[in-house]
C-alpha cells in the first residue's frame, strides 16, 4: 500500500513538471503590453477622480437648492400666517359664515288714473326703489337699514297759497335703521329707527308684499316708524308652529308742529294744517317718550292653514308741555285657508287730547281678501298665475275737516295680481271712494312690483 502511494505521488509530480514545460509562449506578457495596460489604468483612474469631483459638485448644488427651498417655504409660511391675521383663510368655512352682507328690498313702478274729487290726467305716477341692507356681524348681532327712494309728481307753491304741478320730486327716506341684538331665544333687543308694531300692516307692507298698491286709509291715523328701543320675541307652543309673539317699545312718539296742544295750526300760506305730527319724530319735546307694544297669537293647524290675532297700542304725550296725549289701539287678524285663500284686516282706534277741541276719537278699519285662481287647475293661459283681491276700508277722523277732507270715507277696491314670477308681480286695482259730505272719487292703480 505504501508503495502505491509513493508511485502515485511521483507520477503526479512528473506530470505537473511536464505541463509547465509545455505552456505556449503566446501566454507571456511583453513590456509594451504591460506599459499600455498601466497607461490605460491611469486614464481610468483619472476619469474616476473626475466623476467623483463632479458628484461632489452636484451634491453641493443639491444642498444649496434644498436650502433655498427651505428658505422659500419658511417665507411663504410666514406670509400665510401674517395674511391669516388680517383676514380668514379662504378654505376655513366657519369664519366666512360668521358674518354676511345681504342686499334685499323691492322696487315698484306705478301708473294711476284718478277721477271724481281728485280728477287728473292719467300718468306714470311713481317709481320707487327700496333697498334693504343687512349685515350680520355674528350670530347675535344684525344691522339692518331700509331706504325708500321715490320719484313722484312735483309741486310748486303759487301766488295766493295755491299749489301747482311742476316736474317731479325725488325723495330719499330712511325707513328704518336698527341694530338687533338677539339676547336669548325669547328676547331680541332693538335700537334705532324702527318700524313700529302697531298692527301687522306696517311690518308687512313692502310693495311686493301688499297686493293692493296703496295703503288702507285708516293707517294714516297711526305712526309708522319711530326712533327708540324695542324688546321683542316669540315663544313657541309645542312644535306645530303655534306661538305667542310679543313686542314692547319706547319711542319719541307724536309731536306738535307749533309746540302747542291745539288741534290745528297755520302754515306760511295761511292754510290749515293738523298740529299733531305722526311722522315719527326724532326729537322728544315732552317730559318723556311714548311707549307701545303688541301681543299676538299665531295658530297653524297645518301648512297654509292658520289664524293670527293681535292686540297692539301706543300711548304718550304729543304737545311740548306734555299735557295732551295721543293714544292708539289696534286689533289685527289674519286667516289662511289653503294656499289659495286668505283674509286679513285691522281695526284702528286713536284718541287725541287737544287744548282747544277737547278729546278727538278717530277710528277706521280695513279687510282684505285674496283668492288664487290656480285653485281651479284650469289649463288656460294667464289665469292660473292670477290672484283676485278685494279690500274694503273706512275711516272716521274728526280732524280731517280741518284740512278740507271728509270726516268719513269708505272705499271699495277690487283688483287682481298677476304673478310673472314668485317675486315679480303686476298689480291692478280700481278704487271707488265715497266721501261723506264731499265729492266721491275713483282711481285706477297699476303697479309693477319686484322683491329681491
Amino acid at each position: 500500500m505504501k508503495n502505491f502511494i509513493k508511485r502515485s505521488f511521483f507520477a503526479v509530480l512528473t506530470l505537473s513538471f511536464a505541463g509547465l514545460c509545455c505552456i505556449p509562449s503566446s501566454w507571456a506578457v511583453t513590456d509594451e503590453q504591460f506599459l499600455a495596460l498601466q497607461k490605460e489604468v491611469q486614464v481610468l483612474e483619472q476619469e474616476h477622480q473626475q466623476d467623483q469631483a463632479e458628484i461632489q459638485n452636484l451634491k453641493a448644488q443639491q444642498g444649496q437648492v434644498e436650502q433655498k427651498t427651505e428658505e422659500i417655504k419658511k417665507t411663504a409660511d410666514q406670509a400665510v400666517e401674517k395674511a391669516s391675521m388680517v383676514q380668514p383663510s379662504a378654505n376655513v368655512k366657519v369664519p366666512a359664515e360668521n358674518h354676511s352682507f345681504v342686499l334685499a328690498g323691492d322696487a315698484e313702478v306705478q301708473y294711476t288714473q284718478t277721477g271724481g274729487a281728485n280728477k287728473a290726467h292719467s300718468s306714470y305716477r311713481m317709481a320707487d326703489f327700496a333697498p334693504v341692507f343687512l349685515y350680520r356681524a355674528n350670530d347675535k348681532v344684525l344691522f339692518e337699514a331700509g331706504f325708500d327712494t321715490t320719484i313722484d309728481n312735483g309741486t310748486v307753491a303759487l301766488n295766493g297759497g295755491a299749489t301747482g304741478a311742476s316736474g317731479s320730486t325725488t325723495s330719499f327716506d330712511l325707513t328704518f335703521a336698527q341694530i338687533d341684538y338677539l339676547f336669548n331665544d325669547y328676547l331680541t333687543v332693538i335700537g334705532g329707527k324702527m318700524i313700529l308694531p302697531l298692527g301687522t300692516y306696517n311690518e308687512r307692507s313692502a310693495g311686493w308684499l301688499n297686493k293692493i298698491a296703496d295703503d288702507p286709509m285708516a293707517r294714516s291715523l297711526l305712526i309708522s316708524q319711530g326712533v327708540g328701543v324695542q324688546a321683542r320675541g316669540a315663544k313657541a307652543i309645542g312644535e306645530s308652529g303655534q306661538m305667542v309673539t310679543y313686542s314692547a317699545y319706547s319711542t319719541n312718539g307724536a309731536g306738535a308742529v307749533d309746540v302747542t296742544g291745539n288741534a290745528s295750526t297755520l302754515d306760511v300760506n295761511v292754510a290749515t294744517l293738523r298740529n299733531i305730527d305722526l311722522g315719527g319724530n326724532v326729537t322728544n319735546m315732552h317730559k318723556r317718550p311714548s311707549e307701545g307694544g303688541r301681543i299676538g297669537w299665531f295658530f297653524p293647524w297645518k301648512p297654509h292653514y292658520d289664524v293670527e290675532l293681535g292686540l297692539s297700542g301706543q300711548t304718550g304725550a304729543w304737545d311740548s308741555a306734555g299735557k295732551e296725549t295721543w293714544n292708539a289701539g289696534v286689533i289685527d287678524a289674519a286667516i289662511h285657508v289653503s294656499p289659495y285663500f286668505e283674509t286679513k284686516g285691522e281695526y284702528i282706534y286713536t284718541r287725541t287730547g287737544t287744548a282747544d277741541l277737547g278729546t278727538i276719537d278717530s277710528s277706521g278699519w280695513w279687510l282684505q281678501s285674496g283668492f288664487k285662481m290656480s285653485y281651479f287647475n284650469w289649463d288656460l293661459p294667464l289665469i292660473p298665475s292670477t290672484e283676485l283681491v278685494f279690500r274694503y276700508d273706512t275711516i272716521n277722523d274728526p280732524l280731517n275737516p280741518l284740512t278740507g277732507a271728509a270726516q268719513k270715507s269708505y272705499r271699495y277696491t277690487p283688483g287682481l295680481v298677476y304673478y310673472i314670477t314668485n317675486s315679480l308681480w303686476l298689480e291692478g286695482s280700481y278704487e271707488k271712494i265715497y266721501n261723506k259730505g264731499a265729492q266721491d272719487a275713483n282711481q285706477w292703480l297699476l303697479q309693477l312690483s319686484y322683491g329681491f
Partner: protein
Amino acid sequence: MKQSKWFLFRFIFAVIIGFAMIGGSGSLVLADAAPQKSVKKLDGEQLYAVHCSRCHSERYPTERTDAQWKTIIMHMQVRANLPPEQARKILKYMKENN
C-alpha cells in the same frame, strides 16, 4: 286727557318685558301648558310653508347662498317674530336645498 288713564297700558308694557325675560330663563309656564299628546312636529320645509307664505310668496332656496340665507333668516326672525328654534329648522331646510 289725563295720562293716568293709560296706566293699564303701561302695566301691560311692563308685563311683556317681564314675560320675555322669564322666557329666557326657561321657566315659562306656557311651554309646560302645551299638551304633549297633541304636539305635531313640523320639519323645516313645513315650517317654511307655515311662516313665510303667510306674508309673501315662497322664495326658492337656490336664490341665495348658505351665508346669505343665514343673514336673511336672522332678519326674518326679528321682523316676523319667529321662535329661534323654528328659524333654525327653516335655515337648515334652505341650506340643504340651495
